[in-house]
Structure formats: C-alpha cells, structure tokens
C-alpha cells in the first residue's frame, strides 16, 4: 500500500474514532440508560450478524466488485436451518449443510460475475431477489422454533460471568483473521492489486477470476453463518430474517473508508464503522425513535461516506497544483 493511501486511511480511521465517541456522548445525553454495561452488551449482540457479513463484503468491494445478496443469503440460510431442523435432523448436521448452501450461493454469484462477465451489481441484485424468494419457498410464512437450549443461549446469552455476547467472540476471531489476511498476506496484496488495476493484476499472472469467485464464496458462507447466529438469537427460523440488513452492512463498509471503486480500505476502518452505526442506532432506539426512521440517518451516512471523499478529491484537484517536491517528468 502506498504511503499516501496509508496516511489517508489512518486519517479516516481517526475520524471514525471521533465519530464513535461523539455518538456515545449523543446516546448518553438522549437517554440515562445508554451508558450501562448491559446496554452495550445488547447493542453489540444486535450488531454481530451485520458485522460478520461486513468483513467479506469489504474484501469484495476492495477487489472492485459488490455483493447486495448478503441479507437474502442470511434469510435463505435461516429458512434452510429451520426446514432441516423441523425434519428432525440434528443441528451438528444442519449447520454445516447450511454453510455449504451459503458457499453454493456465493459460487453462483462468483461464476456469473467472472465467467459470464456480468456486472456484480446486477447479478447480486438478481440473487438478492432469488435467494429471498427461495427462502420463502423453502419455509413459506412458517416460523420454526423449539431450538435446543444451548443453541438459543449461544445466540442470546453472554459468556458466563461477563457481559460479552458469544457471537462477539466469533466476530472478534473473524475480524482478526481478516485483518491479518488483508494486511500481511499475499492474498491481501493480490486483492488490493485487483482492486487498483484489474488489467495489471491479470498481466502479472494473478488469477483474477479465481480470487473473485473465492471472495464471493466467502461472502456466501459468512452470510449463512450470520443466518445461523440470527436464528439462534431470535430462537426462530423465518424466511424474512435479515430483511433491510443490506443498508447497514454496505454503509459500515463504505463508512469504514473502503473506496466504492475498489483498491482502498482497511478492516480496522470497517470494524470502527460497524460500532459507529451500532451506537447510533442504539442511542436513537433508547430515545424511542423507530428503526425505520433511524434509517434516515444511516442512509444519509452512506451517501456522505462516498460523497465526502469524492468532493474532497475534486476540491483539492480544483485548487492550483502546488509544485511537488520532485519534478515529475512524465514525458
């Protein structure tokens, strides 16, 4: 990563830390019950499914593509889990099956984008409808409940003796793994190369199609995992689980500093942005603002997180170019 991009992302991340603190202050001023351990525990547990889906989506957008179908894959996974569990199959069989279904959905997205060469925007818009439709075909209006105690405790409960929700542990491990892969490994280096210049990556021997397909599969699997966790938390499998999540997931990636055109972005930024949105929504909820009205704020955040940098870039471009220290003779 070039030094310029690093400086830019570090400045963006410190902006997010300030925003996080600001929203915590806003939250505590809106309601006396905000600053409490149990509230932060609830806030975090409501956030984990979206957070888990934001990680692979960050890699996909850095690689220059997008995946809008994540919330529908979550719904389909929840419906399949309910369907198989209602058949009496044990959970240790249902959960892997559901993750495989997630991988298959991701593979379909990947092949349509890399082999058929279709734009990922339209493909994943199609699968957003397709997977949600399949979920309602699998489970219809039914909801499956009666889950084993350990399963619902995992979804809804905290690690004994603390206020840390179990799903937070899952997310923390995944976040550290993604941070490691993106920053330190050749996979991360290739993802940045593909995002910054797809042609140069291809001409450097990188199998762009295989890498992108892998990322879509990863997104499918983790969306399915999020579906399992949400089913546990709600202790009820439904075809309409996860509806409307795509806004928060895409916003946390773009607010996190990932460039919509690919090539730039860090996991640290995305994780910070996830909690910024989580704290904002929780503060507004405690002030009895309905979730849908909250989406006005989150929707605005999404637009600003993309409009902001482009406007800054255009303003700085418009200013007369100061003489750079080293004359660049690009003859």
């Amino acid at each position, binding site marked *: 990563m070039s030094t310029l991009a690093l400086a830019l992302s570090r400045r963006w991340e410190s902006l997010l830390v300030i925003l996080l603190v600001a929203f915590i202050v806003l939250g505590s001023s809106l309601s006396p019950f905000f600053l409490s351990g149990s509230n932060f525990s609830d806030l975090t547990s409501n956030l984990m499914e979206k957070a888990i889906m934001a990680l692979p989506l960050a890699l996909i957008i850095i690689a220059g593509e997008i995946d809008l179908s994540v919330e529908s894959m979550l719904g389909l996974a929840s419906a399949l889990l309910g369907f198989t569990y209602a058949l009496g199959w044990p959970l240790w069989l249902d959960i892997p099956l559901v993750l495989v279904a997630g991988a298959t959905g991701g593979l379909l997205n990947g092949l349509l984008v890399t082999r058929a060469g279709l734009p990922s925007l339209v493909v994943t818009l199609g699968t957003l409808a397709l997977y949600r439709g399949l979920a309602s075909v699998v489970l219809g209006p039914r909801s499956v409940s009666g889950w084993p105690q350990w399963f619902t405790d995992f979804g809804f409960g905290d690690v004994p003796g603390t206020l840390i929700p179990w799903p937070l542990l899952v997310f923390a491990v995944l976040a550290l793994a993604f941070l490691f892969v993106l920053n330190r*490994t050749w996979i991360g280096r290739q993802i940045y190369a593909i995002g910054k210049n797809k042609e140069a990556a291809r*001409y450097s021997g990188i199998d762009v199609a295989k890498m992108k397909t892998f990322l879509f599969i990863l997104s499918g699997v983790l969306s399915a995992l999020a579906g399992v966790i949400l089913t546990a938390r709600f202790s009820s499998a439904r075809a309409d689980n996860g509806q409307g999540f795509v806004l928060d997931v895409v916003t946390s990636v773009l607010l996190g500093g990932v460039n919509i055109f690919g090539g730039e972005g860090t996991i640290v930024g995305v994780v910070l942005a996830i909690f910024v949105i989580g704290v904002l929504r929780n503060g507004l909820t405690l002030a009895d603002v309905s979730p849908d009205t909250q989406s006005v704020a989150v929707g605005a955040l999404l637009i600003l997180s993309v409009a902001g940098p482009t406007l800054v870039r255009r303003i700085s471009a418009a200013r007369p170019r100061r003489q750079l220290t*080293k004359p660049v*003779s690009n003859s």
Partner: protein
Amino acid sequence: MVGRRLETLFPKEHATIGEVALEVRGLARKGVFSDVSFQVRHGEIVGLAGLVGAGRTEVARVLFGIDRADAGEVLVAGKRADINSPKDAMRLGIVYVPEDRHEQGLVLDFSIAANVSLPIVQKLSRLLVVDRAQERRLAADYSKQLQVRSTGVDQTASGLSGGNQQKVVIAKWLATRPTVLLLDEPTQGVDIGAKAEVHRIISQLAAQGMAIVLISSELLEVLGMADRIVVLHEGRVAAEFGRDNASQERIMAAATGHAEA
C-alpha cells in the same frame, strides 16, 4: 541523429547464440492472425516488425496465455507447451512486458517493491505472510542492476518517470527468472536518455543468454537491436531477414505487403 552509424545508436553486445528457447509453428487465431511460425534462440533478439494492427501484440498475448490460439503449437526448449493462462506462461519461463505501462504494466498506487514482487508474491511468503525484508532486498537489487532512479523501493510507482517505470516493469519480470522475454514497444513514450538505457538492458540480457522477442514499430530500433527480423503483414508472416540482409526499405516493403519474390 542523421548519419550516425547504427552501432553507436544501439549498443549491441556480442551474444553467443544458443539452443532454440521458443519455437512457434503455424500459430493462428481466427480472424486475427494465422500461420505464424518463428524461432527464438537463447541469447538471440528476434524483432517482430510490421504496421500497427498487423497482429503482433495479439501473437504475444497468445504466447503469454492472455488469449488462446485456435491452431498451431508452441514449443519451449523443444517440448510442446500448453499455455492457457499467464500463470502457465510464467511457469514455462515466458514473460511479457506489455505495450501500455500504466494500464497493464504497473499498479501505480503500489510501491516499487510491491510492483516488483507482484508476480511472485506467493513464492515470497511463508505461512501466507509476505516476507517484506526479502521483497525489499529483491527490489533493491534489480533497481540497482537496471539503474532505476527513485527515492527508494518504497516510493510509489506513480511518482517515477516514464523510463524508470518501464525499468520497474522489466525488473518485475526479471525477478521471475524467465528464459523468454516478450517486449511490446518497450521504448514507446520514453525520453531519449532512458531509451538508450533500456536498449543497453535488453542487449545485456541477451548477452546473458535470455531469448528475447522485441515487438517495435520503430524500424531503426528493430534494425539496431535484432539478430533476426520477422515481418508481419495483416496477420501473416510476410518475410524474415537476418541482421545483415535487412534494410528499412525491405522491411517496409514486406510490412506493406509488397514483398519481392
């Protein structure tokens, strides 16, 4: 430039011509080029001349695995090779310095070190982690060897001059230790000084035994650098000349389809 003897313009070192490194027999791609055959030996520079649109870049893209041939075969060191992707080509020792440096050659936002290591970044990693020290050492060695002028291997490629950028692209492929080097308009859009340095590098590589295919629309460059010249006209081999019996007129005649007998 007028009247100066060819040798002073193009520093052509003496290279011992070795075995056939790459042989192309009857290569064809529907509607683009057909029945293209030529050989490149170790230490030899084969110039591919012809007008723009003659299909020279398309041949190189097939040899490097970007496109697939419809007919013909490619032999590397005498053995038949099946090249379906750039990765296959690299494994066979064939590398390609593309015509468009910015679009296909470099990731401008990456540092020199990151660009040089890109094709072999997987090999430079242990347990997935990229060995940054080895990466920087590699980049530093090749920068010194090719005399890349920069503030250091951490400088972003976008800050380099055209000539230095081209050297980084060459360094990037030398790092893979290739046997066959395909060069597509290597000195296009490069200042005079850098052009000479690139030519010096090319002839040094040939001297060290590299088999080189030089695609160039500059007749003087082809005449000055190449040991043998293959001329393409509308996707077909129009003529082939040795270094001594080639001339601007003969090449232009072949390139425009008026070859004598």
